[in-house]
């Protein structure tokens, strides 16, 4: 019984990481209907950026992360206004190909710049610390922090979207960009801000990715798949749905892994396919679409 409980608990916490991967992807799709195939690679890029800052300036990983956050925001703004704004429009294929190309460029640039060696972010033993619960059950401090970070990011994004003028403008542009322009909203600039916020969320995801496990330049597409699955399981309606999607994916993976370590990824994909078959629009779809 404890083993089952343990498996599910670890899966839920793992889901927090997947929700962090997915939140930025969902945000971008929600605001500008852009499917960013380079999302996973941008997370890996953010992880290398944190590592680079930590090594160059001899700073702790948290401080490095705080420095990386505005840098990633700026990178997102420049990426959107300088490149992606030129390709988004009625044709869905052009932005898809552009971000696909960006994904390949990023992977190879990181391979050249940082080599193929696996790296990780290190902190003062917090990676291996755990909190004992009852019956010999324990949860890792790092997975718990990851999950709490995911909840915090989702609360923050919800506040942004539903409580600020910027959030109303994001939603207005998402509904009807032409009418939004009549309100004086510069949609292209707004898209830049949205991509900036998404890449800042990528930096949060990168911090926990790098502290929990090794990363190398090639793991981006794998993270993208998890992010996609979390978004689609949750439905495009709400960010809480994305967290639920991440949790379902995480639990499925840990259950699969507890049966046979080779089944971890397979179980996640199977859970995704089951949800897709039963509820094609996800578990928490948007009412108006």
């Amino acid at each position, binding site marked *: 019984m404890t083993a089952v409980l343990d498996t599910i608990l670890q899966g839920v916490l793992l889901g927090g990481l997947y929700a962090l991967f997915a939140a930025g992807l969902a945000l971008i799709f929600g605001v500008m209907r852009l499917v960013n195939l380079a999302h996973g690679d941008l997370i890996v890029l953010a992880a290398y950026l944190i590592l680079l800052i930590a090594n160059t300036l001899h700073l702790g990983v948290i401080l490095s992360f705080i420095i990386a956050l505005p840098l990633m925001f700026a990178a997102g703004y420049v990426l959107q206004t300088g490149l992606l704004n030129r390709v988004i429009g009625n044709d869905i294929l052009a932005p898809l190909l552009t971000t696909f190309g960006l994904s390949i460029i990023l992977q190879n640039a990181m391979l050249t710049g940082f080599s193929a060696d696996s790296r990780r972010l290190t902190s003062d033993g917090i990676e291996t610390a755990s909190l004992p619960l009852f019956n010999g059950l324990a949860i890792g401090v790092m997975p718990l922090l990851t999950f709490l970070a995911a909840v915090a990011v989702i609360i923050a994004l919800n506040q942004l979207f539903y409580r600020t*003028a910027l959030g*109303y*403008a994001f*939603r*207005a542009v*998402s*509904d*009807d960009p*032409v*009418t*939004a*322009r*009549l*309100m*004086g*909203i*510069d949609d292209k600039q707004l898209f830049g801000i949205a991509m900036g916020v998404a890449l800042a969320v990528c930096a949060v995801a990168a911090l926990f990715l790098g502290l929990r496990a090794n990363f190398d330049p090639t793991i981006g597409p794998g993270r993208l798949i998890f992010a996609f699955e979390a978004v689609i399981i949750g439905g495009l309606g709400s960010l809480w749905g994305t967290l639920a999607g991440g949790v379902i994916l995480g639990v499925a993976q840990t259950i699969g892994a507890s049966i046979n370590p080779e089944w971890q990824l397979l179980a996640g994909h199977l859970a995704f396919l089951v949800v897709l078959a039963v509820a094609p629009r996800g578990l928490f779809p*948007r009412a*108006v679409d």
Partner: protein
Amino acid sequence: MALLETRGLTARYGDFKALFGIDFAIEAGETVAIIGANGAGKSTFLRAICGLLAAAPESIRFDGAAIGGAAPAEIVRRGIAMAPEGRKLFPSLSVEENLRVGAWSQKTPGYWNLSSVYELFPMLKERRSTPATALSGGQQQMVTIGRALMSNPRLLLCDEISLGLAPIVIRDIYAALPRIRQGGVSLVIVEQDIAQAMAVADRVYCFQEGRVTLSGAPAALSRDAIHEAYFGH
């Protein structure tokens, strides 16, 4: 000097030319109605003024500055707001959020804000948290007008605000116009209902196939002249 003036304004959708040189003027404080049949170019004219369609810079002058072809956001900042045809409310936003989006470009407080819009249309206050597109057609039209007012424009363009509404609802909406004018806003009203347009406007322009076929004060225009300007020969 006119508040807004167009000289030889042309507009096209791709290869299709929709406006053939419109000369139009509205003074500060005036209410001008544009009438004409479907396809006469009335909405196209408003879209060109708002910056949604390309136009030669000098062909549209607002408050002394050439604004033809400027970005819509720039034109809103200069003081032109639009209540678009078909209302075009943002469906995922509540009534109040729709109104707040209208104030996006408003950096300094003006006469029109949430409380003055709610005073103008009291029933919107009761339904402030409702999704905007769940309201009745008349109430949605009120949100559209309120949303445009939130930018505190000097010129408000109203495109077919009575379209698809019951006569009693139209009366309610038109009853709000005098109060909007008291706030110092000039109005351009595009209207298919000629009687309604004649009743509120200081001057009337009639469009036909992308050209101005008649203009003048309502009292000075004979029924036959309007008929001919509206339908052609």
